[in-house]
């Protein structure tokens, strides 16, 4: 088991230091009133290369959100380190952008003003903020919706605004916490294609957390399968499926996609089976 959790970063991605490194990250929570502790993450080790789109998939309770809080710097690991470009993460910072499942837009701000929020923290002059926000709303396909309030936008559009907001201040890494889980199936597929397009256009490093196997396979260059309680890396699978993100190609019906999907499913449900079929690098 332990052997499966470690995987060198070299295969398929550029050499050099990883952009984001989880080095034996451990997180424990005190259970209230009992004096015992709950291990949410146990020696989680993972490297994410610059420009890579990695998807993390796991059952509920695998510590996905805990992991996200740690990367964000909103909480600190009990053990191990998280390194961003070789420097340990010590608190929230604009080198990481986060997209939440529930959008987290400020309802009293227009789309434009929401995107400007992170730029205000960066103390950019007003005209500059305007320009950047406008550009990013255009990037996510929302040109013309700058003055709409969140309640005037659909779920998919809100999430586009949230993505624009997180990209606008140009973070090194974009962290996405089940961003499309609250959307209907069609909107979700559209936004998955949009995300791939944006990723290719910006070359950002993206860590995408999901509980959807299909979504993980469709988006990820690599799919990281996590175990439930305590969360650790069970398997890392390379995905090589051409044509993803091209709206006129039904990649999801491709036998290769279906096979890949099944391998991730296997890894999630039967750790042993995944190992025996050789999907997991030693």
């Amino acid at each position, binding site marked *: 088991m332990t052997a499966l959790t470690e995987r060198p970063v070299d295969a398929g991605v550029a050499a050099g230091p990883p952009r984001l490194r989880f080095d034996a990250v451990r997180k424990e929570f005190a259970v209230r009133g009992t004096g015992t502790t709950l291990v949410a993450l146990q020696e989680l080790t993972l490297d994410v290369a610059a420009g890579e789109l990695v998807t993390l998939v796991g059952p509920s309770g695998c510590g996905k959100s805990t992991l996200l809080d740690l990367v964000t710097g909103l909480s600190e690991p009990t053990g191990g380190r998280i390194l961003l470009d070789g420097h340990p993460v010590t608190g929230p910072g604009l080198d990481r952008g986060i997209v*939440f499942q*529930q959008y*987290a837009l*400020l309802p009293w*701000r227009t789309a434009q003003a929401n995107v400007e*929020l*992170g730029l205000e923290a960066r103390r950019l002059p007003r005209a500059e903020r305007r320009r950047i926000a406008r550009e990013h709303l255009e990037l996510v396909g929302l040109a013309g919706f700058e003055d709409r309030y969140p309640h005037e936008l659909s779920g998919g559009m809100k999430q586009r605004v949230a993505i624009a907001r997180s990209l606008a*201040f140009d973070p090194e890494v974009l962290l996405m916490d089940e961003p499309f889980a609250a959307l209907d199936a069609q909107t979700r597929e559209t936004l998955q294609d949009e995300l791939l397009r944006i990723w290719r256009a910006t070359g950002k490093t993206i860590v995408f957390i999901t509980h959807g196997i299909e979504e993980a396979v469709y988006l990820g260059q690599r799919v990281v399968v996590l175990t439930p309680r305590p969360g650790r890396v069970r398997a890392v699978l390379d995905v090589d499926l051409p044509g993803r993100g091209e709206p006129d190609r039904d990649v999801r019906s491709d036998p290769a996609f279906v096979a890949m999907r099944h391998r991730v499913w296997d890894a999630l449900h039967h750790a042993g089976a995944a190992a025996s079929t050789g999907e997991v690098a030693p």
Partner: protein
Amino acid sequence: MTAVAEASQQRARAAARARRTASVVLRSSVALLVFLAVWEAAPRLGLADPVFLPPFSTVLATFVGLLADGTIGLQVGTSLARAGAGFAIAVVVAIPLGFVIGWYARAAQYLSPFFELFRNTAALALLPVFILVLGIGETSKIAIVVYACFFPILLSTITGVRTVDPLLVRSARSLGLGSAALFVKVVLPSAVPTIFTGVRMAATSSILVLIAAEMVGAKAGLGFYITYTQFNFQIPEMYAGIVTIALVGVAVNAGLVLLERRLMRWRAA
């Protein structure tokens, strides 16, 4: 041809809208009209003593007369100045204090029992104390209004700050906002709707408490006017004063609702 058809269609739609508006107005005013009709009819039919309950038309005529000779304007002005002053002081003190208490859990621990005690002490019960300490002049009346307005505003501010969506706070912190920016850009605006509920409650009770205070001891103001006319047996004048209070209350509330809409245009309708 189509333009003509369109125009007639538009006219028909406008007419339908007008009919709908008219029916809404009718439905919402029917209870009021029935009430006024009963008021008018009861003394005329001998169901009530016209000396103690003059018909509505008499009261209305008196009201118009008092409006014309400036009596009502003077009394309303006096009362509104007092209520406004007390209300403004309460807003200026209670909102910042509410933010402090809501934001710092420690402050709440120290202050909550104290506020809980005073919140549950009816303002009017303290009126004798205010008059003893501050005299019968303006100060005691403004003070009692401050007292009555203070707690609804304070408590709604505390609630507003405490019920800020934690996700918005997390998200803003992840965007690199410091504590001060977080407060100004997230906590404050998201607390505004809750605070406003308290502000409206305070405005209503400011007038309520003031009228009562003016009835006990004052030389001008709506409360004073009502007791004064009652003592002097000017019954239609007394009713005119009561009608004025009702109208002032409705107007103040409508003004605040309008302000609320302006401040919170971002809300879903």
